[in-house]
C-alpha cells in the first residue's frame, strides 16, 4: 500500500525539506542557530508559550483576521473567491504573526535585543512594533536605496524606537540587508536574536517562521469550514521569501486543495532559478551562469528577492504546489480592479495573487472553482508609488 507523503511537517533534523534547506552559516553563528532551534522546539511544545503567542496575536495583533467573500470580483471573473484578510492585521500585513512569535522567543531565550532585515520596510516596521511592545532594543538593516525609496517606513521604525541602518554594499537592497544583518548577528549573538522576516535563512528559520505563520492557514481552514465552503479548490498566495504563502498553505497542505504560489516575474526563483546556497539555506535562486546571485526586479519591494524559502523549493520539486509568475503591468491592473470592485486596496505583493486569478479564471482555474486568496497586506504603503507610476503615464 503506497502512503501519501505528509506535507509541511517538521523538516529533517538537519533542517532539510527534501533536498532543500539545511544550515549554511559561519561557524560563529552555528551555536546561535542550534540554541534557537532548541529554544523554538522547547517553546513550541510549551502550552504557556503557545498561549501567549496566540493571545498577543489576538489582543494586540488583531487576529483572527476575517475571510471576506469577494462578491463583485467573483461574479465578474466567474470563480468564487474568498480573501484571507491579512491586510487587517496590525501593521498591515501577515508579518506581525512571525515577529510576535520571534520576539516572545527572544525574551524567552533571555536576549534583550533583536535585529532584522527589511526591504520595503514591512518586516522592519513589524519587528520594531513587536520589539517596542516588549521593550526589546531593535536595529533594522535596510538597503540604502530602500531607505531612500521608503523614507516614511524608516521614520515609522524610528517612531517605534528602533534604529535603522542603511546598508551601502552590493545592490543596496533587501538581499544586501540580509547579508548585513547576518554580519551584525555574528558580532552580537550573545544578547541579540536575528528576527528573520520570511521562511528563509538557516534552519530553524524556515520552519519556525512557517510555524508562526501557519495560524493564517489554520484560521482560514476553520473559517471556510464553518461557513460551509469546506476545502477550497485552490489556495493562491504571493511569494517573496514565501512566508505568507507557507502560512496559508499550511492549513491545506494535506488536503485536496491545489496550492499556487505567485512570484514576481522579475524574481521568479522557481520558474527561472536553479538550486543554490544563499543566506544560510539551500534553495532555488536566480543566479548568473557563474553562480553569482542576481538582483530581482519587481514593482513590489516585498517580492524583490532572488530566492525563495527552501520548503517552497521542495513543494515545487515534489509537485505538491505550483509556482507561477506575474509581471508588473498585470499587478497594477489587479490592484485597481480589486480596489474598485471590493473596496480593498491590496499591497502590490498581494496584487500578484489577485492578478493571477484574474488571468487564469476560466483557464487554469475552472469556472466556478472556490479559490482562497491570501491578501497578505494592505496597499496603503504602495499608493504613493502606484500614483507616481499611473500619473507618469497620463
Amino acid at each position, binding site marked *: 500500500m503506497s502512503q501519501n507523503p505528509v506535507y509541511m511537517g517538521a523538516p529533517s533534523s538537519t533542517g532539510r525539506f527534501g533536498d532543500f534547506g539545511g544550515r549554511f552559516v559561519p*561557524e*560563529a553563528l552555528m551555536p546561535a542557530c542550534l540554541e534557537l532551534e532548541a529554544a523554538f522546539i522547547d517553546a513550541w511544545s510549551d502550552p504557556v508559550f503557545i498561549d501567549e503567542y496566540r493571545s498577543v496575536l489576538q489582543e494586540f495583533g488583531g487576529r483572527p483576521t476575517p475571510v471576506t467573500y469577494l462578491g463583485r470580483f467573483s461574479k465578474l471573473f466567474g470563480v468564487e473567491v474568498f480573501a484571507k484578510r491579512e491586510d487587517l492585521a496590525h501593521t498591515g500585513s501577515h508579518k506581525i504573526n512571525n515577529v510576535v512569535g520571534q520576539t516572545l522567543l527572544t525574551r524567552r531565550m533571555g536576549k534583550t535585543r533583536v535585529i532584522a532585515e527589511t526591504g520595503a520596510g514591512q518586516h522592519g516596521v513589524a519587528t520594531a512594533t513587536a520589539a517596542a511592545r516588549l521593550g526589546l532594543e531593535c536595529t533594522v538593516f535596510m538597503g540604502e536605496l530602500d531607505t531612500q525609496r521608503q523614507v516614511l517606513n524608516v521614520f515609522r521604525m524610528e517612531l517605534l524606537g528602533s534604529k535603522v541602518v542603511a546598508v551601502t554594499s552590493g545592490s543596496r537592497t533587501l538581499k544586501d540587508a540580509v547579508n548585513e544583518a547576518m554580519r551584525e548577528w555574528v558580532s552580537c549573538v550573545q544578547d541579540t536574536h536575528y528576527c528573520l522576516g520570511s521562511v528563509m535563512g538557516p534552519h530553524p528559520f524556515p520552519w519556525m517562521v512557517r510555524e508562526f505563520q501557519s495560524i493564517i492557514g489554520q484560521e482560514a481552514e476553520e473559517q471556510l469550514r464553518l461557513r460551509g465552503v469546506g476545502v477550497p479548490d485552490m489556495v493562491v498566495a504571493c511569494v517573496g521569501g514565501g512566508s505568507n504563502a507557507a502560512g496559508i498553505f499550511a492549513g491545506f497542505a494535506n488536503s485536496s486543495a491545489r496550492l499556487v504560489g505567485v512570484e514576481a516575474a522579475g524574481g521568479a526563483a522557481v520558474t527561472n532559478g536553479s538550486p543554490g546556497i544563499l543566506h544560510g539555506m539551500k534553495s532555488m535562486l536566480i543566479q548568473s551562469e557563474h553562480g553569482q546571485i542576481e538582483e530581482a526586479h519587481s514593482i513590489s519591494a516585498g517580492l524583490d528577492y532572488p530566492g525563495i524559502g527552501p520548503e517552497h523549493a521542495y513543494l515545487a520539486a515534489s509537485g505538491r504546489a505550483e509556482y507561477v509568475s506575474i509581471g508588473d503591468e498585470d499587478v497594477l491592473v489587479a490592484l485597481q480592479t480589486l480596489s474598485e470592485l471590493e473596496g480593498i486596496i491590496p499591497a502590490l505583493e498581494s496584487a500578484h495573487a489577485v492578478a493571477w486569478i484574474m488571468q487564469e479564471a476560466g483557464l487554469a482555474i475552472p469556472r466556478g472553482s472556490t479559490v482562497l486568496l491570501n491578501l497578505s497586506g494592505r496597499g496603503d504603503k504602495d499608493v504613493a508609488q502606484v500614483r507616481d507610476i499611473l500619473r507618469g503615464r497620463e
Partner: protein
Amino acid sequence: MKSLEVTLRELRDSGRKALVPYFMAGVTPDWTQHVAAAVLGGADAIEIGIPFSDPMMDGIVIQRAAERSLEAGTTLDSICAQLSARDLGAPLIAMTYYNLFHHYGLRRAAGLLAQGGVVGAIVPDLTLEESDEWREVCDETDIATIFLVAPSTTEDRFARLAQATQGFCYASARMAVTGRAQGAGDATRVVEAVRATSDVPTYVGIGITSPQQAREATEHSDGVIVGSALVETILKGASPADTEAFIRTFRSVIDE
C-alpha cells in the same frame, strides 16, 4: 594527510610562524603579481579570495574588492586559468562561499581549483554538518578543507572541527566578520581550545591589521592571516612592490 598540512606542519616544526595574506582574485589586473610579491616578502601561504556577490562573512573592504572584481568580469574559471598559468611559489588556499562550488558542480569546481594549483579551501558558510559532500570531492584531489572556529564555538564543536579541519585550523579572533574589529580579541582562548583536542596548526585571523597585532597573535598560535588591511591598500592603489614591503614589515615584526 593533504600536502598543505604536511607543508604547514613542517613550517611549524621549523619554528617559523606562518604569515598568510589574503588577496581578492581579479580585483586588479595585476593581482597575481601582488601574490608573487607577497611570497617574495615572506608570506608562507596565500589565501585567494574568489569573489561572490553575497559575501556574508566579509566586511566592507573585502565586499568592495569582490564587487570590483566581479565588475571586471572575474569568474571561477578565469581565476583558475590565471593561477594555472604560473607558479606563485607558495601554497594557495581558495576562500569563497559555497554557492559558487555548488553552482559549478562540486567535482568540476574542485577540478578547476586543482588545475590552478590550489591546495586548500576555506568556505566560511559551509558548516561541518553540511560539508560531507564537499570533503569527499576534495579527497579525490589534494585540496584540504579548512574549517573555522570562533569564540562562540562550543566545546564539542571545537573537538569536531579541529578533527575535521585539514591543513590548519582557522581561529577567528573575534565575533566579527572580516575587517570589522581590530586586535587579537579572544584568540588565545580559541587557539587553546583547538589545541586541547588536536595538534593541527592553528592560525589566527579576523582583526589582524598591524604587524604588532600579528606578532601578539603568533605568541600563542602558529600563524596569522592578514586580510582586509592588505586588501585595503590594494584597493587604494598599492603596487606589487608596496605589497612586498607590506608583507616584509609584518614578517620582520613577527620574526623579531
